[in-house]
């Protein structure tokens, strides 16, 4: 059994093919996840639509207002982009820490987001940076905040007639610190047991002016830790306050047992690694 492979050269052509083949079509960019699911026999589409030849979906551009990453930009292109490094070094480090260089050379950011595996690295960091995705359909374009993109394991709020075309990351307010930490008890290229992304900005008086925290591998989707954020907003982030805020992550996550840790262990580790991430931002502001 095989499928027909299509390589449209424009988004309009891709949308056309999707309309023609409906549920029998599957989109791929780098095709890493697809190849695995196909080999496992979990996907049997009649038509596969490859997006990699669509020129407008690639590349990375930066303006004063935002960083725009094309959906078919590979993890490695993003890791090596000077624009990304200028925008946010923690974003560069996040991409550099994904799996191995082989995977980063093939897997794309658009594919990563559309695949919606809750243990992936870029989603929590992009959530903490307030990113949004652009989705195109025959009806036009719309943007979806990353906070609203992930619905369930492997499930996004993208409609079946939409193509994810780009990821937009707004410019960070001056003085914003960012970090991405992941707990890897087994190997460096593994998926994390838990991962934590955080951004923080301080007032001149040393209070928290702005904070965003997001976690991966702690439930069916990557998730914002709003209880942690609320506990820190306006506070002087001393060690006790951070420990208290980090403990509140329990209310924001819904982990389930997987091969990288039981739900209970993930809850413990989410608290520990949230505290570490927040402390590193406070200690790093000097």
């Amino acid at each position, binding site marked *: 059994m*095989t*499928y*027909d*492979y299509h390589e449209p050269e424009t988004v309009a052509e891709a949308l056309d093919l999707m309309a023609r083949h409906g549920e029998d079509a599957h989109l*791929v960019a780098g*095709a*890493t996840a697809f*190849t*695995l699911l*196909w*080999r496992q026999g979990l996907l049997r589409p009649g038509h*596969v639509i*490859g997006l*990699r030849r669509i020129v407008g979906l690639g590349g990375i551009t930066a303006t004063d207002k935002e960083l725009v990453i094309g959906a078919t930009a590979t993890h*490695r292109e993003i890791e090596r982009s000077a624009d990304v490094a200028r925008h946010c070094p923690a974003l560069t480090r996040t991409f550099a820490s994904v*799996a*191995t*260089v*082989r*995977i980063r*050379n*093939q897997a794309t950011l658009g594919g990563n987001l559309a695949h919606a595996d809750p243990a992936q690295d870029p989603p929590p960091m992009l959530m903490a940076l307030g990113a949004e995705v652009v989705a195109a359909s025959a009806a036009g374009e719309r943007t979806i905040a990353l906070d609203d993109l992930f619905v369930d394991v492997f499930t996004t709020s993208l409609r079946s007639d939409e193509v994810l075309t780009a990821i937009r990351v707004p410019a960070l307010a001056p003085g914003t610190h960012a970090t991405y930490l992941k707990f890897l008890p087994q*190997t*460096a*290229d593994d998926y994390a047991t838990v991962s934590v992304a955080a951004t923080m900005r301080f007032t001149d008086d040393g209070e928290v002016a702005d904070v965003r925290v997001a976690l991966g591998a702690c439930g069916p989707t990557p998730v914002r830790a709003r209880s942690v954020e609320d506990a820190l907003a306006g506070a002087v982030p001393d060690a006790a306050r951070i420990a208290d805020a980090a403990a509140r992550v329990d209310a924001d996550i819904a982990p389930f047992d997987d091969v990288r840790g039981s739900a209970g262990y993930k809850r413990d580790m989410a608290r520990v690694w949230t505290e570490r991430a927040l402390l590193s931002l406070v200690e790093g502001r000097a």
Partner: protein
Amino acid sequence: MRADRRLIDALRDDLGCIGTKEGCSIGVCGACSVLVDGKLLSACLMPAVFVSGRAVTTVEGLARGDELSPLQDAFIREGGFQCGICTPGQLIAATALLAERRRPSDDEIREWMMGNLCRCTGYHGITRAIKAAMA
């Protein structure tokens, strides 16, 4: 070619280039490492149709005639392999590393080669060989 053929299938079964090995089949072990237009990739994850019109380098392409590449020579001199099953992937990954960074540090070598597993655990020999090839 069938659309669902992977690069590893095309190399080994269709072209008879059996130097590239298939290990885990899920992009983790590195045995099937190849270069596509100089980029290091897992041939087990790459649809063969994706390399149409691009240059694929496998372990068979590292030597020039009878002359081994400096890395191949160093792997032999430094004992960079034991059973040998992971060696084609190790050589290809190391070739990509030295093409990108002329003089990687020990940490950079370890980080780059982290994705190529050696079940004989001959990692010291592999690292030694890469450093010898840089000299």
